[in-house]
Structure formats: structure tokens, C-alpha cells
């Protein structure tokens, strides 16, 4: 009795885990599916994408996880996040504890004001979408552009193709612009 090992266990190093979180209707699940397709199909890595949501269609907390690995992905959900995108204050408050100490935190500064850590990237995704791209709906795609720049987990071209494959016809230019804006704004901040 009494063999202790939990204080010695390590988070598996072959996994890159990211979470896109916000409010239902902000397109977090869509963005995660696009990331999953870009990374899993074009970049040929193993990917598992999952989400949790409440019974309501809009409003309420929404989160979508993407786990990426060169090896078989056993556990489908995130265990310790390498990257967290928080599009609402509630999302940040709920999930910040799941982020690794050296993990990348990205917040939408128009909706998240109370950020209890110093090391983060803040971009005004909602306003960038509205003012630079011309539609508030693409804030999630602006965020995808920023994720590509900040993490390097997926190339901008590959990401753009994946977004265009999923986006409704007639929105190609706006979506392409949204990724460009997100990528560009992020590159100004990138450490």
C-alpha cells in the first residue's frame, strides 16, 4: 500500500492543446472546426476537436478545444492548455486556470477588461472586425488570423484556405481580409 507517483507525473509533451472560448453565437466552434481541418488535413497532424455547450443556441458559455499531436491522441479533451483565446470576461474567468504557466493567452480587449495576469496578448477583435473588415460577425476569423501569427501552429495560407472552404459563398473577401487583419495586428504585438 501507499505507492505515491502523482507528484512525479508529467503533462504529455507531444500534445499541443488550445481552447477557443466565448459566448454562444461568437463562432468559437466554427473557428475550432476550421483550425482542426487546417491542421489535421493540410498539415497532416492528428487532431481532435471537441466542444461543450449548454442547451441554449445563443448566449451562455461556449468552448471548443483542439488537441494536436504527431502521435495518437488518447484523451480527446484538453488537459493543460498551450493556448487560450478568451472572447468574453466569463470565458477568461472560467478557463484561465487551465492554461499552462508559459501558455499563450489571447483576449478580446473590447469585451475582456479584467485580466489578472501580465503576460498576454490583447487585441480588439470585435472592433477590428467591425471597423477594419466591415462586419462584426467575423471577429472569430480575425482571432484565427491572430492565432496563426502568435502560435505558428498553422500557416496563414493553409488557414485561409480552410476558412474559405467552410465559409458561405459571397463572404470570401471579408474572410480573407479578416485573417489578414488579425495576422497583421498580431505581428505588431508579437514578442
Amino acid at each position, binding site marked *: *500500500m*501507499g*505507492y*505515491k*507517483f*502523482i507528484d*512525479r*507525473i*508529467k503533462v*504529455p509533451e507531444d500534445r499541443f492543446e488550445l481552447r477557443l472560448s466565448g459566448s454562444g453565437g461568437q463562432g468559437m466552434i466554427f473557428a475550432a*472546426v476550421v483550425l*482542426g*481541418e487546417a491542421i*489535421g*488535413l*493540410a498539415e*497532416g497532424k*492528428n*487532431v*481532435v*476537436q*471537441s*466542444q*461543450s*455547450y*449548454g*442547451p441554449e443556441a445563443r448566449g451562455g458559455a461556449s468552448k471548443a478545444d483542439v488537441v494536436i499531436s504527431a502521435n495518437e*491522441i*488518447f*484523451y*480527446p*479533451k484538453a*488537459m493543460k492548455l498551450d493556448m487560450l483565446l478568451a472572447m468574453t470576461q466569463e470565458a477568461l474567468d472560467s478557463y484561465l486556470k487551465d492554461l499552462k504557466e508559459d501558455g499563450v493567452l489571447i483576449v478580446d480587449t473590447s469585451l475582456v477588461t479584467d485580466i489578472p495576469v501580465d503576460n498576454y496578448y490583447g487585441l480588439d477583435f470585435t472592433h477590428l472586425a467591425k471597423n477594419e473588415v466591415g462586419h462584426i460577425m467575423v471577429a472569430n476569423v480575425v482571432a484565427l488570423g491572430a492565432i496563426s501569427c502568435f502560435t505558428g501552429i498553422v500557416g496563414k495560407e493553409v488557414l485561409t484556405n480552410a476558412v474559405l472552404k467552410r465559409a458561405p459563398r459571397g463572404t470570401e473577401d471579408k474572410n480573407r481580409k479578416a485573417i489578414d487583419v488579425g495576422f497583421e495586428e498580431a505581428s505588431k504585438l508579437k514578442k
Partner: protein
Amino acid sequence: MANKKKKLMQGNMACVEGAIYSGMQFFAGYPITPSTEIAEGCSRELPKIGGRFIQMEDEIGSIAAVIGASIAGMKSFTATSGPGYSLMQENLGYAFITETPLVVINVQRGGPSTGLPTKVSQSDTMQARWGPHGDYAAIAVAPSTVQECHTETVRAFNLSERFRTPVTILLDEVIGHSRGVISLPEKGELEVYNRVKPTASPEEVLPFEMTPNLVSPMAGYGEGYRFHVTGLTHDVHGFSTNRSDEIFPKLDKLHNKILNYRDEISKLRIENMDDAEVAFISYGSVSRAALQATAIAREAGVKVGCIQLYTIWPFPEKELRQICANCSKVIVGELNMGQIIHEIERVLPGDIEIHAKQRYDGEIMTPMQLLEKLEEVL
């Protein structure tokens, strides 16, 4: 260069792909979370291949339509979740006694009753064995990844056609809704079994004849063979009987046509068991946490292994006894208050300690929960 056959899809949709790969031509169902994408996928894909999709008035009608379509010769299936699976039980019993091949996918959510529509559970494990009243042998399989949703659906159709019996696929919300990269197999890559049809003339054929393997060749309605189908216990002609010398053989047939081949039906995944002192035993989404926990604990030097059950029913008892022969302890992980653990307690020898890690709050089992349990029992 992207591989054209690779796709990112949900487990539910991989089941649809697996069913179509098997030659399924008919789906009747009543959409229910978290299985809805299976009905949606069938409504989209079946018309393209000349199949039939029908949304029925409820789950009772759905399983009835599936039974009818199968007797007419089409590979048929339905998909539901706990509340709908409960409603289907009476007609599933009818499918057992009439020896009608069909597949039911139950994407499990929390219960009882309406329960937790968007949350995960494994609380229908025993219902998949004992749902309908009466004596019969049941087959149930449980995938745990998107790729396995495809292969286990193909396997479920094969088992159902080969043994002329309903087969349940137990998914859960996490497996049904998670997306993963799947390689869709080419035609011929996986075996597809088609039901055996009678070759003798209609006058000579006994529709429920006792064959050496106990599976009677099955004609489709409209193919020139007239036969009677009844839920009453029946003789080789399909007509009801109260005679002991016909009742015994009929019920033995329902059992033995399956149990005589349980070695071929059993399917398990075995990881790190060669020198394992402790084993995780699980199925469905809990297996993913168990595989992860095993990998993490091995890194820390713990002699632990992992057994995943793909075949739940008939319960793979012989295999488990062999694999666990050198273990001193097992940990049974389930998203319920204890179901398959009773089978494990029944089949493992008394000197193996059996521990339970159960979760039933609608959330997935985490690797950490299993690791904590492991440390506790070591």
C-alpha cells in the same frame, strides 16, 4: 499534399459513413440529441445513393420501420439516445425473436428519463443486454474514436447480417460529437458481410430452419418466398407454437447462434499488459482517458496496463480472465453508477481486487481522476 480520403468529421457522421460503406439503404428515425447528426447525415446522403430516409412520428415507429425494411431485404438502421432507446425496446424484442438483422446506434446521454440531453453518459450498458423482456443473446459494440465509429459500424452491420440479429452500437456524447481526422476506407478494404439468402425453391424452404450454424437463410419479402413473421414463439415454419420440443430449440437457437461464435465476436484493445500489476478496464470515451492515464503513469514507473472493450455483449469473459491472469488489481472506469463492473466481478477470480471509478455528473472521465484512483489502490 492533402490526402483526398482524409476528412475531419464527427463520430456521428463517421457512423453514417460506416453504414453506407456496409451497404445500408434505409434509415428511419426520430432525431434526438446527441444523435441528431446521424439522422441529418442520412437525410443528406441516402437520397444520393438511391436509399431511403424517413423521419418517423416517434422512436416506436422508427424501429418498426427499420424491422420492416430489413425483412424486405434492405440493410437498415436507426439512431437514438437513452429516452428513444427505451421506447424501442418492445420492438427490439420483436426483432430478436423474428431474427431480423438491424443496427441501432445509441448515443448515450445522462438519464433516467429526459435526463441530460447535451451531456455524456454510459448508463445504458445493461439496457443494451437486457432491454427487451424475455430470453435472448444480445450483441453490443462500443467505439471510442471517430475512425472506430466507422469500423465498429461496419462490424455491427456484419455481425447483424451474419447472425440475423439486432446489434446495438453504444456511443456516448463525447464520441458522437468530437471531430477527428478519419481515413475513409476504399471499397474492399474492410469486409462487408451480406445476409445469406435461401437457394432452394420457395416450396422447400423453411424460413426458420435449423442449420448447422443455427442461422437460417433469409429471403426478402417480394423475392418470391412467402413466410410468416410473428412475435409469438414459433417453429421452423414461422408459425406460433406451444410445444416444448419446438420452444427449447427456438430459444437455444437465439442464444447459441451467437454464443457459439463469441470468440469471433469478442474484440479488445490491450496496452501495456505484459508486466502490468494493475489494469484499467473500460470502454467508450472512458477508454481514451484510461489510455492517457496509462501512458502518464508508465512514464512515472507504474506497472499499469489498459484493456478496452470494443465488444461489450456478449461479454468477453474468457479473454478478460486470460489477460488479467497476472494482475493483482483492476480499476473499472465507467460513466455510470456501476454496470459492467458486475460482469467483471462475475468473471475474474476472487484473488484479484476490483476497484471502481465512476462518474455520473454528465462530464467526461479525466485521466487525472483515473490516476488518483490508481494511486489510491496501489
